[in-house]
Protein backbone atom coordinates (compact mmCIF):
# COMPACT_ATOMS: atom_id res chain seq x y z
CA UNK A 1 0.00 0.00 0.00
CA UNK A 2 2.94 2.33 0.61
CA UNK A 3 4.81 1.66 -2.62
CA UNK A 4 2.42 3.94 -4.51
CA UNK A 5 3.87 6.89 -6.42
CA UNK A 6 3.43 10.41 -5.03
CA UNK A 7 1.07 11.51 -7.86
CA UNK A 8 -1.18 8.59 -7.03
CA UNK A 9 -1.15 9.55 -3.34
CA UNK A 10 -2.06 13.13 -4.17
CA UNK A 11 -4.91 11.87 -6.32
CA UNK A 12 -6.22 9.69 -3.48
CA UNK A 13 -5.90 12.58 -1.05
CA UNK A 14 -7.99 14.67 -3.44
CA UNK A 15 -10.48 11.81 -3.79
CA UNK A 16 -10.67 11.75 0.00
CA UNK A 17 -11.29 15.50 0.19
CA UNK A 18 -14.07 15.16 -2.36
CA UNK A 19 -15.66 12.15 -0.66
CA UNK A 20 -15.46 13.86 2.74
CA UNK A 21 -16.89 17.18 1.57
CA UNK A 22 -20.61 16.34 2.03
CA UNK A 23 -19.83 15.05 5.53
CA UNK A 24 -17.80 18.18 6.21
CA UNK A 25 -20.73 20.38 5.21
CA UNK A 26 -23.18 18.31 7.26
CA UNK A 27 -20.68 18.50 10.11
CA UNK A 28 -20.87 22.30 10.03
CA UNK A 29 -24.51 22.05 11.13
CA UNK A 30 -23.69 19.61 13.91
CA UNK A 31 -20.74 21.70 15.10
CA UNK A 32 -22.86 24.86 15.08
CA UNK A 33 -25.25 23.25 17.54
CA UNK A 34 -22.25 22.16 19.63
CA UNK A 35 -20.99 25.73 19.74
CA UNK A 36 -24.39 26.84 21.04
CA UNK A 37 -24.94 24.14 23.68
CA UNK A 38 -21.35 24.32 24.98
CA UNK A 39 -22.04 27.81 26.28
CA UNK A 40 -25.05 26.49 28.15
CA UNK A 41 -22.61 24.28 30.08
CA UNK A 42 -20.46 27.25 31.03
CA UNK A 43 -17.78 27.03 28.35
CA UNK A 44 -16.65 30.36 26.91
CA UNK A 45 -16.87 30.72 23.10
CA UNK A 46 -13.07 30.43 22.95
CA UNK A 47 -13.11 27.24 25.06
CA UNK A 48 -15.77 25.67 22.83
CA UNK A 49 -13.69 26.41 19.73
CA UNK A 50 -10.48 25.09 21.33
CA UNK A 51 -12.30 21.93 22.40
CA UNK A 52 -13.46 21.25 18.84
CA UNK A 53 -9.98 21.98 17.50
CA UNK A 54 -8.06 19.63 19.81
CA UNK A 55 -10.62 16.98 20.80
CA UNK A 56 -12.33 16.76 17.37
CA UNK A 57 -14.80 14.05 18.36
CA UNK A 58 -18.39 15.21 18.00
CA UNK A 59 -20.35 12.66 20.00
CA UNK A 60 -17.79 12.72 22.84
CA UNK A 61 -17.93 16.51 23.00
CA UNK A 62 -21.74 16.51 23.11
CA UNK A 63 -21.72 13.85 25.81
CA UNK A 64 -19.23 15.72 28.00
CA UNK A 65 -21.22 18.94 27.67
CA UNK A 66 -24.52 17.18 28.42
CA UNK A 67 -23.10 15.67 31.61
CA UNK A 68 -21.79 19.07 32.76
CA UNK A 69 -25.13 20.72 31.97
CA UNK A 70 -26.93 18.09 34.06
CA UNK A 71 -24.69 19.01 37.01
CA UNK A 72 -22.12 16.23 36.63
CA UNK A 73 -18.45 16.66 37.56
CA UNK A 74 -15.60 17.18 35.10
CA UNK A 75 -14.46 13.60 35.86
CA UNK A 76 -17.88 12.21 34.97
CA UNK A 77 -17.91 14.26 31.78
CA UNK A 78 -14.49 12.93 30.73
CA UNK A 79 -15.53 9.35 31.52
CA UNK A 80 -18.69 9.79 29.44
CA UNK A 81 -16.63 11.15 26.55
CA UNK A 82 -14.23 8.18 26.83
CA UNK A 83 -17.09 5.67 26.72
CA UNK A 84 -18.69 7.30 23.68
CA UNK A 85 -15.28 7.39 21.99
CA UNK A 86 -14.68 3.73 22.79
CA UNK A 87 -16.12 2.82 19.36
CA UNK A 88 -12.84 4.15 17.96
CA UNK A 89 -11.15 1.14 19.62
CA UNK A 90 -12.63 -1.43 17.23
CA UNK A 91 -12.31 1.08 14.36
CA UNK A 92 -8.62 1.59 15.22
CA UNK A 93 -8.06 -2.16 15.50
CA UNK A 94 -9.66 -2.56 12.07
CA UNK A 95 -7.55 0.12 10.40
CA UNK A 96 -4.31 -0.61 12.31
CA UNK A 97 -2.92 -3.17 9.85
CA UNK A 98 -3.35 -0.63 7.01
CA UNK A 99 -1.17 2.01 8.72
CA UNK A 100 2.61 1.76 8.18
CA UNK A 101 5.54 3.22 10.13
CA UNK A 102 6.73 3.12 13.73
CA UNK A 103 4.40 3.17 16.74
CA UNK A 104 4.43 6.96 17.14
CA UNK A 105 3.72 7.52 13.45
CA UNK A 106 0.89 5.00 13.56
CA UNK A 107 -0.53 6.64 16.69
CA UNK A 108 -0.54 10.01 14.95
CA UNK A 109 -2.12 8.59 11.79
CA UNK A 110 -4.76 6.98 14.02
CA UNK A 111 -5.85 10.45 15.15
CA UNK A 112 -7.39 10.98 11.71
CA UNK A 113 -9.98 8.27 12.39
CA UNK A 114 -13.47 9.75 12.42
CA UNK A 115 -16.66 7.85 11.62
CA UNK A 116 -17.29 9.00 8.04
CA UNK A 117 -13.62 8.88 6.99
CA UNK A 118 -13.21 5.41 8.43
CA UNK A 119 -16.13 4.23 6.30
CA UNK A 120 -14.89 6.10 3.20
CA UNK A 121 -11.37 4.68 3.55
CA UNK A 122 -12.60 1.10 3.83
CA UNK A 123 -11.88 -0.88 0.67
CA UNK A 124 -14.55 -3.42 1.61
CA UNK A 125 -12.05 -6.28 1.92
CA UNK A 126 -10.90 -5.51 5.46
CA UNK A 127 -8.11 -3.14 4.36
CA UNK A 128 -8.18 0.66 4.34
CA UNK A 129 -6.75 3.40 2.07
CA UNK A 130 -5.06 5.79 4.46
CA UNK A 131 -4.84 8.64 1.93
CA UNK A 132 -8.62 8.57 1.51
CA UNK A 133 -8.78 8.65 5.31
CA UNK A 134 -6.48 11.68 5.60
CA UNK A 135 -8.23 13.61 2.82
CA UNK A 136 -11.77 13.06 4.03
CA UNK A 137 -10.81 13.83 7.63
CA UNK A 138 -9.05 17.08 6.64
CA UNK A 139 -12.17 18.54 5.08
CA UNK A 140 -14.33 17.39 8.00
CA UNK A 141 -11.92 18.97 10.47
CA UNK A 142 -12.31 22.33 8.76
CA UNK A 143 -16.11 21.95 8.81
CA UNK A 144 -16.12 20.89 12.45
CA UNK A 145 -14.00 23.76 13.74
CA UNK A 146 -15.65 26.28 11.40
CA UNK A 147 -19.14 25.25 12.51
CA UNK A 148 -18.13 25.53 16.16
CA UNK A 149 -16.89 29.08 15.55
CA UNK A 150 -20.27 29.97 14.01
CA UNK A 151 -22.22 28.42 16.89
CA UNK A 152 -19.98 29.89 19.59
CA UNK A 153 -20.09 33.40 18.18
CA UNK A 154 -23.65 33.49 16.81
CA UNK A 155 -25.36 31.36 19.48
CA UNK A 156 -27.55 34.19 20.71
CA UNK A 157 -28.86 34.86 17.22
CA UNK A 158 -29.63 31.19 16.49
CA UNK A 159 -31.65 30.62 19.66
CA UNK A 160 -32.62 27.19 21.03
CA UNK A 161 -30.85 24.46 19.00
CA UNK A 162 -33.77 22.04 19.56
CA UNK A 163 -36.33 24.53 18.23
CA UNK A 164 -34.52 24.57 14.88
CA UNK A 165 -34.12 20.78 14.86
CA UNK A 166 -30.35 20.67 15.26
CA UNK A 167 -30.55 17.68 17.65
CA UNK A 168 -31.82 15.58 14.71
CA UNK A 169 -28.78 16.43 12.60
CA UNK A 170 -26.31 14.11 14.29
CA UNK A 171 -28.37 10.90 14.19
CA UNK A 172 -29.34 11.75 10.59
CA UNK A 173 -25.64 12.06 9.78
CA UNK A 174 -25.02 8.54 11.11
CA UNK A 175 -28.11 7.21 9.34
CA UNK A 176 -26.70 8.47 6.01
CA UNK A 177 -23.46 6.62 6.83
CA UNK A 178 -25.38 3.49 7.79
CA UNK A 179 -27.45 3.40 4.60
CA UNK A 180 -24.22 3.25 2.55
CA UNK A 181 -23.27 0.09 4.46
CA UNK A 182 -26.47 -1.90 3.90
CA UNK A 183 -25.65 -3.35 0.48
CA UNK A 184 -26.06 -7.04 1.34
CA UNK A 185 -28.28 -9.14 3.56
CA UNK A 186 -25.61 -9.92 6.11
CA UNK A 187 -24.87 -6.22 6.69
CA UNK A 188 -28.57 -5.53 7.20
CA UNK A 189 -28.78 -8.40 9.70
CA UNK A 190 -25.75 -7.10 11.60
CA UNK A 191 -27.16 -3.54 11.60
CA UNK A 192 -30.47 -4.75 13.05
CA UNK A 193 -28.62 -6.82 15.65
CA UNK A 194 -26.35 -3.88 16.57
CA UNK A 195 -29.34 -1.56 17.00
CA UNK A 196 -31.15 -4.13 19.16
CA UNK A 197 -28.11 -4.71 21.41
CA UNK A 198 -27.66 -0.96 21.87
CA UNK A 199 -31.34 -0.26 22.59
CA UNK A 200 -31.54 -3.14 25.06
CA UNK A 201 -28.59 -1.68 27.00
CA UNK A 202 -29.72 1.97 26.94
CA UNK A 203 -31.80 1.76 30.17
CA UNK A 204 -29.16 -0.17 32.15
CA UNK A 205 -25.67 0.81 30.93
CA UNK A 206 -23.87 4.18 31.09
CA UNK A 207 -23.83 6.26 27.88
CA UNK A 208 -21.43 4.99 25.25
CA UNK A 209 -21.45 1.37 26.46
CA UNK A 210 -24.52 0.43 24.36
CA UNK A 211 -22.75 1.52 21.16
CA UNK A 212 -19.49 -0.22 22.07
CA UNK A 213 -21.37 -3.42 22.92
CA UNK A 214 -23.15 -3.26 19.57
CA UNK A 215 -19.82 -3.93 17.86
CA UNK A 216 -20.24 -7.53 19.08
CA UNK A 217 -22.87 -7.90 16.34
CA UNK A 218 -19.99 -7.90 13.83
CA UNK A 219 -18.94 -11.30 15.24
CA UNK A 220 -21.59 -12.70 12.91
CA UNK A 221 -18.69 -12.42 10.43
CA UNK A 222 -16.92 -15.30 12.23
CA UNK A 223 -19.67 -17.63 11.10
CA UNK A 224 -19.21 -16.76 7.43
CA UNK A 225 -15.40 -16.85 7.60
CA UNK A 226 -15.57 -20.33 9.15
CA UNK A 227 -17.85 -21.39 6.32
CA UNK A 228 -15.51 -19.89 3.72
CA UNK A 229 -12.60 -21.83 5.27
CA UNK A 230 -14.56 -25.09 5.08
CA UNK A 231 -15.44 -24.42 1.44
CA UNK A 232 -11.78 -23.68 0.66
CA UNK A 233 -10.66 -26.93 2.35
CA UNK A 234 -13.13 -29.17 0.58
CA UNK A 235 -11.98 -27.92 -2.82
Amino acid at each position, binding site marked *: MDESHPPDRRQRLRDGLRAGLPFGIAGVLVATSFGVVAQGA*GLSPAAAIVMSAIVFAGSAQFTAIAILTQGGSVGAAVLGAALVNSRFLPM*GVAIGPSLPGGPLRRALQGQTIVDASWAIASRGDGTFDRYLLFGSTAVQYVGWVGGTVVGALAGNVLGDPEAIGL*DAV*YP*AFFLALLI*EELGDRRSRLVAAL*GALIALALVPVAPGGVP*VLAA*SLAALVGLHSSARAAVVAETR
Partner: protein
Amino acid sequence: MSSSVALIGACAVVTFVIKAIGPVALGGRELPLWFTSVVILLAPALFAALVATQALADGDRLAVGADTVGVAAGGLVAWRFRSVIGCVVVAAVVTAGLRAIS
Protein backbone atom coordinates in the same frame (compact mmCIF):
# COMPACT_ATOMS: atom_id res chain seq x y z
CA MET B 1 -12.15 28.61 33.46
CA SER B 2 -9.73 26.11 35.06
CA SER B 3 -12.42 23.43 34.92
CA SER B 4 -12.77 24.13 31.18
CA VAL B 5 -9.03 23.59 30.79
CA ALA B 6 -9.21 20.32 32.75
CA LEU B 7 -12.22 19.12 30.75
CA ILE B 8 -10.74 19.94 27.35
CA GLY B 9 -7.26 18.66 28.22
CA ALA B 10 -8.55 15.38 29.65
CA CYS B 11 -10.96 14.80 26.74
CA ALA B 12 -8.14 15.47 24.26
CA VAL B 13 -5.77 13.01 25.97
CA VAL B 14 -8.43 10.30 26.32
CA THR B 15 -9.44 10.65 22.67
CA PHE B 16 -5.81 10.52 21.54
CA VAL B 17 -5.12 7.34 23.50
CA ILE B 18 -8.30 5.56 22.33
CA LYS B 19 -7.60 6.34 18.68
CA ALA B 20 -3.93 5.33 19.03
CA ILE B 21 -4.39 1.91 20.67
CA GLY B 22 -5.50 -0.04 17.58
CA PRO B 23 -2.92 1.41 15.15
CA VAL B 24 -0.05 1.04 17.66
CA ALA B 25 -0.96 -2.54 18.57
CA LEU B 26 -1.73 -3.82 15.08
CA GLY B 27 0.16 -1.59 12.64
CA GLY B 28 1.44 -3.27 9.48
CA ARG B 29 0.24 -6.78 10.41
CA GLU B 30 -1.12 -9.34 7.99
CA LEU B 31 -4.84 -9.91 8.37
CA PRO B 32 -6.22 -13.35 9.18
CA LEU B 33 -9.45 -14.19 7.36
CA TRP B 34 -11.63 -14.18 10.48
CA PHE B 35 -10.40 -10.69 11.39
CA THR B 36 -11.34 -9.32 7.97
CA SER B 37 -14.77 -10.93 8.10
CA VAL B 38 -15.52 -9.22 11.41
CA VAL B 39 -13.99 -5.86 10.46
CA ILE B 40 -16.15 -5.34 7.39
CA LEU B 41 -19.26 -5.79 9.55
CA LEU B 42 -18.21 -3.30 12.24
CA ALA B 43 -19.52 -0.30 10.29
CA PRO B 44 -23.18 -1.42 10.03
CA ALA B 45 -23.13 -2.55 13.68
CA LEU B 46 -21.68 0.69 15.07
CA PHE B 47 -23.59 3.11 12.85
CA ALA B 48 -26.92 1.36 13.49
CA ALA B 49 -26.25 1.56 17.22
CA LEU B 50 -25.40 5.26 17.02
CA VAL B 51 -28.59 6.02 15.09
CA ALA B 52 -30.77 3.92 17.40
CA THR B 53 -29.38 5.36 20.65
CA GLN B 54 -29.70 8.95 19.42
CA ALA B 55 -33.01 8.83 17.56
CA LEU B 56 -34.91 6.33 19.73
CA ALA B 57 -33.61 7.23 23.18
CA ASP B 58 -33.25 10.24 25.41
CA GLY B 59 -30.43 9.76 27.90
CA ASP B 60 -31.02 6.44 29.65
CA ARG B 61 -34.61 5.85 28.56
CA LEU B 62 -36.17 4.92 25.25
CA ALA B 63 -38.07 7.86 23.78
CA VAL B 64 -39.65 8.64 20.42
CA GLY B 65 -40.24 12.28 19.46
CA ALA B 66 -40.18 14.87 16.72
CA ASP B 67 -36.48 14.16 16.19
CA THR B 68 -37.25 10.48 15.52
CA VAL B 69 -39.61 11.46 12.71
CA GLY B 70 -37.11 14.01 11.39
CA VAL B 71 -34.29 11.46 11.32
CA ALA B 72 -36.53 8.95 9.53
CA ALA B 73 -37.42 11.59 6.91
CA GLY B 74 -33.73 12.37 6.49
CA GLY B 75 -33.03 8.66 6.09
CA LEU B 76 -35.54 8.51 3.24
CA VAL B 77 -33.64 11.30 1.46
CA ALA B 78 -30.29 9.55 2.04
CA TRP B 79 -31.71 6.29 0.71
CA ARG B 80 -33.44 7.73 -2.38
CA PHE B 81 -30.96 10.46 -3.36
CA ARG B 82 -27.68 9.35 -1.72
CA SER B 83 -27.31 12.86 -0.29
CA VAL B 84 -25.81 13.37 3.17
CA ILE B 85 -26.44 17.10 3.14
CA GLY B 86 -30.06 16.60 1.99
CA CYS B 87 -30.45 13.99 4.72
CA VAL B 88 -29.34 16.23 7.60
CA VAL B 89 -31.13 19.33 6.31
CA VAL B 90 -34.45 17.48 5.88
CA ALA B 91 -34.01 15.90 9.34
CA ALA B 92 -33.56 19.33 10.94
CA VAL B 93 -36.38 21.00 8.97
CA VAL B 94 -38.92 18.23 9.64
CA THR B 95 -37.99 18.10 13.33
CA ALA B 96 -38.23 21.88 13.70
CA GLY B 97 -41.53 21.94 11.78
CA LEU B 98 -43.10 19.26 13.98
CA ARG B 99 -41.99 21.09 17.12
CA ALA B 100 -43.37 24.38 15.80
CA ILE B 101 -46.86 22.95 15.28
CA SER B 102 -47.06 20.73 18.38
